[in-house]
């Protein structure tokens, strides 16, 4: 896979714009050791290599060193957070210390480390990444939202509504032009749909209707939250009442679940179009487009100039113009435990090949791939759009 030449992603050149902050005055000899030169300033390219090996927190400390480093850091961060290149979130578990998280860019294998300071937060479980935030279980009674890059975090108590347990799926969306947010969670036992709205400071549990099926995924499209059930019924989530208005669509795909396995269906916002992706284990089966003009499902023959990224039981994302970021068009990338399975979506020629195996040279004993991280994606909802 070629890495394109004009990659906009800010890779590593943290000190590209460094201007030496030292004036012409003599260097104070703080130590007795002699230095061969007046200043033992390491050149920018070397500082870049060092900074590449630091985790996100240490890069933050770096930025506090002096004004010019702070400016460089700010530019680095702005570019980093605006980048459309997907990152793979991995967790590394070392027997001897706390787990660390990393963000890996697959085409160039560049890794950004984040050792979460567990003294402060003590999360127990990673659930998902949505709208710029890690969604983690803090204990059985609360969920924590934390932005790994800016450290803004919020803890939301769930004890009055549901117990936080394994396999929560969630979506975080912000109110359009406001600081309010909507937090949609599939959790508890039995798994149900719960929605927290900051404007109400409370949870609402949405009832399941057996005939349409249980909600298994959600996505934001045109400032509206859409949900899909295990029977491939799609509805609009109301934010003003505990209702889901299901769409009357033609040609609903007949999703026959394998006995014992629930189907893996995911809603995708692909270039402002609503898609439904049907996965069987780690392979893509079919992708449908919801055509709102004819109110019907249309099976896609090709993904066109898009690639899909999926993580089991989590969200599915689409990337347009994937070649620009080192990925292939019409391909599907599925992260599963320790690998990323790659398959091409077109006709019957859907070969699955593992793409990434854990980095064995690292000193950690085990890593697991968790999820995809699309840094630039931020969901916004318009409260006035849905009754």
């Amino acid at each position, binding site marked *: 896979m070629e890495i394109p030449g004009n990659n906009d992603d800010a890779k590593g050149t943290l000190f590209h714009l460094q201007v030496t*902050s*030292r*004036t012409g005055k003599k*260097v104070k000899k*703080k*130590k007795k*050791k002699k*230095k*061969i030169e007046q*200043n*033992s*300033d*390491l*050149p920018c*390219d*070397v*500082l870049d*290599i*060092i*900074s590449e*090996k*630091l*985790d996100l*927190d*240490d890069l*933050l*400390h*770096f*930025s*506090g*060193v*002096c*004004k010019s*480093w*702070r400016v460089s850091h700010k530019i680095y961060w702005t570019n980093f957070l605006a980048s459309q290149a997907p990152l793979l979130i991995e967790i590394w578990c070392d027997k001897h210390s706390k787990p660390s998280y990393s963000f890996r860019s697959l085409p160039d294998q560049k890794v950004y480390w984040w050792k979460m*300071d567990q*003294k*402060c937060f003590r999360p127990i479980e990673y659930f998902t990444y949505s709208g710029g935030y890690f969604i983690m279980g803090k204990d059985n009674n609360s969920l924590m939202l934390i932005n790994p890059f800016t*450290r803004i*975090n919020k803890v939301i108590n769930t004890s009055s509504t549901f117990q936080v347990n394994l396999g929560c799926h969630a979506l975080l969306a912000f109110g359009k032009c406001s600081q309010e947010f909507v937090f949609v969670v599939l959790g508890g036992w039995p798994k149900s749909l719960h929605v927290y709205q900051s404007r109400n400071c409370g949870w609402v549990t949405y009832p399941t209707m057996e005939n349409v099926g249980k909600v298994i995924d959600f996505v934001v499209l045109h400032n509206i939250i859409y949900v899909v059930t295990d029977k491939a019924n799609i509805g609009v989530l109301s934010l003003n009442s505990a209702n889901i208005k299901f769409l009357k669509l033609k040609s609903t795909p007949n999703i026959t679940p394998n006995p014992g396995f629930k189907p893996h269906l995911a809603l995708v916002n692909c270039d402002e179009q609503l898609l439904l992706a049907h996965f069987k284990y780690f392979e893509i089966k079919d992708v449908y487009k919801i055509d709102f003009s004819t109110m019907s499902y249309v099976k896609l023959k090709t993904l066109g100039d898009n690639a899909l990224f999926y993580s089991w039981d989590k969200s599915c994302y689409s990337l347009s113009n994937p070649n620009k970021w080192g990925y292939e068009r019409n391909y599907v990338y599925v992260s599963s435990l320790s690998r990323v399975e790659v398959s091409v979506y077109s006709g019957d020629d859907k070969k699955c090949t593992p793409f990434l195996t854990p980095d064995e040279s690292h000193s950690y004993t085990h890593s697991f791939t968790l999820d995809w991280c699309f840094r630039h994606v931020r969901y916004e909802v318009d409260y006035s759009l849905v009754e």
Partner: protein
Amino acid sequence: MAEEKSQASSSKMLTLKASDGVLFEVELNIAKEMKTVQAYIDDCEDIETIPIPNVLGKHLAIVIEYIKKTNEEYDAEFEKQWNMDDLQLLLLAANYLNISGLQECLCKAIAKRIENKSPEYVRKVFNIENDHSPEEEAKLRKEYKWAFEGVDKD
């Protein structure tokens, strides 16, 4: 880095002259690991003594030893022997001589030593002046409150 050399070339020796005049006789294949030296040799084949003006004898000795002995085990122990100043000077040497393996090893070592340290510590390490005003400094600490907690004591 397959070291298949014919008898003739592996026995060829080269002299490297450090900035303080110390001379080192090294085998050609060792010298060639230093890409800067390699470039020198490419330019003038018959050269026997190559000046290394930016590197002190004591550091050049360490660099040469590294090249001879480098492997995973050696690398892991290597960086532990040196203090921060020496690490930086060795890194400057590795950078000048263009030895990517040593450069990588030293960068890793320095990164490891500044991990979880305060900006003040990093300033001392790299000899940088703090040009933030007290107000700016306070604002910085407030903005990144979580990141500054749990930092190792200097």
